[in-house]
């Protein structure tokens, strides 16, 4: 039976008819084609199973006992840890993305020296995070750290013990986090700004929109979806961020700056109770799952949305 190209790929037939023609588990492949397909598929599936599904399933299994959650909730530092996590996410994520939004406009400038400055600006993101956070920890040392020594040398004043009190220590964590991650999101938002057609700005200009109006009525509406996706992604990543707190404050002073990620490690490996540690991490799921669902829905849009 002769078959033209259009009918082979199903064009011209009703969608319902196309849906009823299922290809089966082998995708309609036969013989050596099927074997080759399997040969390519099996390693990926095995790796996915071994390094993605299995660890996740094992983690869920480790944290499945209600008694682990009872132990977690009875820990006096858990509630404080939740508050810290909320502050870390709420302030850290929003502030650094807002800064990134502003800076992305600045770095759109065509001046060569602004472009050169961008190279320096992205360095905090480009360098490895652990040594830099350890350096920040040392710089914040109240006795011999760089910051307090500079304050004393330049102004003759003794700086505070940054890491000895909860709020300055938590603020140090958030500032370090912003310093580390703002460049990355700035670059993402620069890319977003570059994708906005220049004609729109020209049209807005003809209508008299300049300066802040240009930003309010053209740039921000077109960047809004990207900005929201960036916020969701950043929140998800930050929820699992261990390095910033661990290396800047170590959860101190007096366990007062832990976030869920560091509390989980502390419970698993310091208190020697991996099940409670996993429960600490899994207790973020009520926030994490809706975020992932919203993100997936945003990414599932078929139309290109800036």
């Amino acid at each position, binding site marked *: 039976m002769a078959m033209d190209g259009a009918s082979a790929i199903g064009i011209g037939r009703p969608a319902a008819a196309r849906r009823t023609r299922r290809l089966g588990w082998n995708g309609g492949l036969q013989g050596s084609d099927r074997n080759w397909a399997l040969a390519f598929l099996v390693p990926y599936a095995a790796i996915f199973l071994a390094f993605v599904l299995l660890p996740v399933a094992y983690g869920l299994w*480790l944290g499945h006992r209600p008694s682990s959650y009872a132990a977690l909730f009875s820990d006096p530092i858990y509630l404080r840890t939740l508050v810290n996590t909320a502050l870390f996410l709420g302030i850290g994520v929003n502030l650094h993305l807002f800064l990134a939004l502003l800076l992305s406009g600045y770095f759109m400038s065509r001046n060569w020296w602004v472009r050169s400055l961008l190279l320096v600006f992205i360095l905090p993101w480009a360098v490895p995070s652990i040594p830099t956070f350890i350096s920040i920890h040392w710089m914040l040392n109240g006795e011999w750290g760089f910051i307090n020594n500079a304050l004393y040398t330049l102004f003759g004043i003794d700086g505070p013990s940054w890491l*000895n009190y909860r709020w300055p220590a938590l603020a140090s964590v958030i500032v370090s986090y912003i310093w580390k991650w703002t460049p990355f999101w700035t670059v993402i938002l620069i890319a977003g700004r570059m994708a906005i057609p220049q004609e729109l700005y020209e049209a807005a200009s003809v209508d008299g929109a300049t300066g802040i109006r240009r930003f309010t009525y053209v740039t921000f509406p077109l960047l809004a979806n990207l900005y929201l996706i960036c916020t969701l992604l950043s929140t998800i990543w930050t929820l699992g961020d261990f390095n910033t707190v661990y290396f800047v*404050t170590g*959860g*101190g002073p*007096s366990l007062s700056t832990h976030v869920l990620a560091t509390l989980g490690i502390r419970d698993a490996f*310091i208190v020697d109770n991996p099940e409670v540690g996993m429960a600490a991490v899994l207790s973020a799921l009520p926030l994490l799952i809706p975020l992932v669902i919203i993100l997936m829905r945003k990414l599932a849009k078929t139309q290109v949305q800036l």
Partner: protein
Amino acid sequence: MGNMSRRGVIGGSLGLAAGAGLARPHIARAASKTLTVWWNQGFYAAEDQAFHNLVAAWEKASGNTVDLTLLPGQPLNEKIVSAFTSGHVPDLMYADNAPAQIIPQTAWDGKLLDVTDVVETQKSELSETALQSAQFYNNVEKKRSFYGVPFKGATLNIPTWKSLIEKAGYQMSDVPKTWDPFFAFFEDVQKKLRAKGMRHTYGLGYTLSTTGDDPNNLFVQFLVGHGGGGIVTPDGKLHVDDPKVREAMVKTLTQLASAFKGGYVPPDALNWGDPDNNNAFHSQEVVMTPNDTISISSAVMNNKQWYYEDIVTSPIPLDNDGKPVSVLLGVLLAFIPKGSGNVDAAKDFIRYLIQPEHLDLYLKEALGRWLPVMPNLVKNDPYWLDPQDPHRQAAVKQGVLGPTATWYYVFNPAFAQVDAEHVWSVATSDVINGMTPDQATTKAFERITAIFSKYQTTS
């Protein structure tokens, strides 16, 4: 042969090669075994070299080989906890803070091998405290037994800058002998040094942080020094309702928090990790710092001026009534997990390690940082009580020949969790942040009672 096809020749060759490859290791395994050992990396290179030497000697004597993994303390602990959780364990393990952090819980859960037969080989040589410190409660089998083999120990010592004491206008002989005056003396030294322009020098190097073992070692030894030694009895029972224990807790909190609030402790001591008081001492940020082992002085052994002239190691002071205080002896243990594939070889290795002549050599090659847990070793080998050494002999007299006490985590794993949660340092911080010592004691004891309620021992 002439009838063999090319495919047959290739197939036969591959079969022979595969067969030989599989057969050879089997023959090798019949002759010797490979022991997988996870061991704590030393504080300095000599410690690791000493262990490598011991391993080489055992390999030569036994014909076996050791697959050795040396890791620093915390990463090793994480590896060990992961191994127990997953069930994929090595043959033999040792970690510096495993007796306080890992062994009590894993023994309780029935995950360790009973090594009574190994300990028996040197039972007469081991000190009473060492023997007691290796017996943990197994809640699965409802019995207390040897779940680790003791081979070295450590107590709290007080390294002090003699040169700074003298700079402040005092002599070492001026240092008081009893508890409160002893520590108050260093506050006075600080005042004198500050008057001489040493703006960043503090009298007292107390570790008050919520990481590592040092803050627990410091606090609990102070608790004992103030008469709270009965907080947990060998039957594993908690006694926070004992008025003497409560009074000792209040006194300890008052003493440590007052020193901090008075400005006699470096502010960053609230965030010190275990090596940080060593670093603060070496940089003369503190005049003294209570520290487990003599690692502070051993690390500068090559600097003769510092080691023999400028630094002295003192034992903990007498109590306020002038009576000796039992020093808590942290006994370090090698342990074998259930599931070890080479139990016989692992036991053979430990038996070799704890033979007095081997242990003596190993500890000496590690520069004597750790204490022998066999009193006869220090009596028979002049190295340990060398009067020319201002550090080792002081530590040995206190920790091997003096009155020692067993750590409470041996009696009940709940105490290990209390230490791991740093309940003591949190209470100290509570007082620093404005709570009264009495309130902080009530809060801490409530948490400790809650933790102990999960661990009921029957012996």
